[in-house]
């Protein structure tokens, strides 16, 4: 069975490819959705095409799948409509799958399940990374605001932090928002 993964994030594609290989699938190709990728895909005559639901190239892909004369059998998204929970899980995970007509459900299901698991795992790692980045940026902002307070008001570090925290609590805002506002104000005042 030939599986083509269309993805421009090298990392996600390799996470998925690796999973599929571990599960015993061998005929796997990763195609980035650039330039004349549909012509390349057409020549490959895949049985299953996996693509991130949010990929902007899906319209281009679907057009090819619906008009191609080169593909022996039509390919449609989630050919088997009976398994609604599976489709729901795939959509939630951001997986869309185009499957050649006539491929049996039992053969497609494990691929789809694997793609869903790998996409979810990838999204989790991505979210953790984003969170870590935000946390780091927040800390830097708060540190800068503290430094401004320490300098202009002659406060010690714990007092400067306490002032930011009290202000945030009184205004019902996050500490980082108060810190950012302070930095902006200080920049405007040439502080």
């Amino acid at each position, binding site marked *: 069975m030939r599986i083509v993964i269309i993805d421009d994030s090298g990392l996600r594609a390799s996470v998925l490819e690796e999973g599929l290989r571990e599960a015993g699938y061998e005929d796997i190709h990763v195609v980035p959705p650039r330039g004349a990728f549909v012509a390349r895909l057409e020549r490959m005559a895949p049985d299953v095409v996996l693509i991130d639901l949010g*990929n902007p190239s899906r*319209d281009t892909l679907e057009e090819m799948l619906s008009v191609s004369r080169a593909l022996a059998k039509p390919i449609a998204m989630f050919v088997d409509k009976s398994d609604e929970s599976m489709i729901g899980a795939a959509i939630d995970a951001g997986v869309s799958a185009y499957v050649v007509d006539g491929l049996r459900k039992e053969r497609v299901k494990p691929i789809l399940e694997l793609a869903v698991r790998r996409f979810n795992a990838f999204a989790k790692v991505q979210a953790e990374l984003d969170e870590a980045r935000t946390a780091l940026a927040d800390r830097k902002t708060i540190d800068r605001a503290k430094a401004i307070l320490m300098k202009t008001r002659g406060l010690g570090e714990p007092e400067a932090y306490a002032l930011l925290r009290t202000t945030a609590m009184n205004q019902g805002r996050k500490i980082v928002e108060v810190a950012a506002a302070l930095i902006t104000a200080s920049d405007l005042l040439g502080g």
Partner: protein
Amino acid sequence: MTPIRAAFLSLTDSAVLVVARERGFAAAEGIDLDLVRTTSWATLRDRLVYGQVQAAHMLAPLAIAVTLGLSQQPAALAAPYKLNVNGNMVVMATQFAAALEPDVAARLADPLGAAHDFAAAIGLYRRKPIVGIVHRFSSHSLMLRYWLASAGVDPDRDIVLRVLPPSLMVEAMRAGEVDGFIAGEPWGSAAVDEGLAETVALGERIWQRGVEKVLAFRRDWMESNPDAVDRLLRALAAAAEWCDRPENWRELAGLLASSDYVGEPVELIERAISGQILARKGSAAIAAPDFMMFAREATSFPWRSQGLWIYSQLVRWGMVEASETNLAAAAGVFRPDIYRRALASAAPMPGASMKLEGALASPLPIGAHHGALTLGPDRFFDGRVFDPERIAEYIEGFGRS
């Protein structure tokens, strides 16, 4: 507050949804409107069909195609509200446009002449021109086909149509993957501004009141949530009135320019809204006051005849078989009954639900509930009139290509 999630694409004509959220019109109706940005029509369709969102800023022909089972998973969709009328333009690479009327204002004023010039330019060009369309089932594709076919061009034979999402059009032009495209704003203006392309036709000069984006729901969801639907429609109607007022245009363009929505410069976005179109880099703006319409003339009213016009074009181009079943399914997508229910006391609206399309050469005051209503001219550039009671005859009139 009732939460409603609506999917949209980064286009100037997402304006009414954006304003409903950002200027409090949705909140005033008790709707917590969450807007979900998507980058392709396939994704927008899937989010709606599989229930990740309850509403979508959808290409009118796509809503009909999904209902007819022509675009992946079939689902009965309903369009009780039109988010805008008009708003597209055809742009072509400067090298291609060199074979057309050089005076851009004259070119745009004469779509019939421009279509014939386009037809002649095909043979002079270095390859069969590749024209980007945003989707097979888009108003853009149907309009481009209609326009070129009038000059004897067979769009399936004489040019190559390539499907790309609107936000990737400019990049595709830059890479030489397409020689031009028809897309919603601000993408045509963006290509003009980069000096890559010139405007060769305006949607509103091909069909003066061309149906464009609709607010689409899944029919079953719409029917089981009448109260939420009515409140959302009232919020949108108020937002649309706001969008039509010239004193708000700058602010509207500013809202859309945010990276949460369109993410392109204010000046670029403002052109479609204010109807000041730059057809060539550095040239003077051309006034096209009907370039994109939101509220006036009951723009948002979903005339059943407009849904049927779309069906006629799908049949014409062999995208769907003509049958009573398909006709009935297509006719059921536009839902003036829901519009009337929701907006009965809010806006003047037509008494009828169908009309001849393309029959008005000048503004016409019509019978309306609640105040006066004048319909603007709605002619097709070739003068044909679509009678929704005589669809087969209309299609026959185009001849076989």
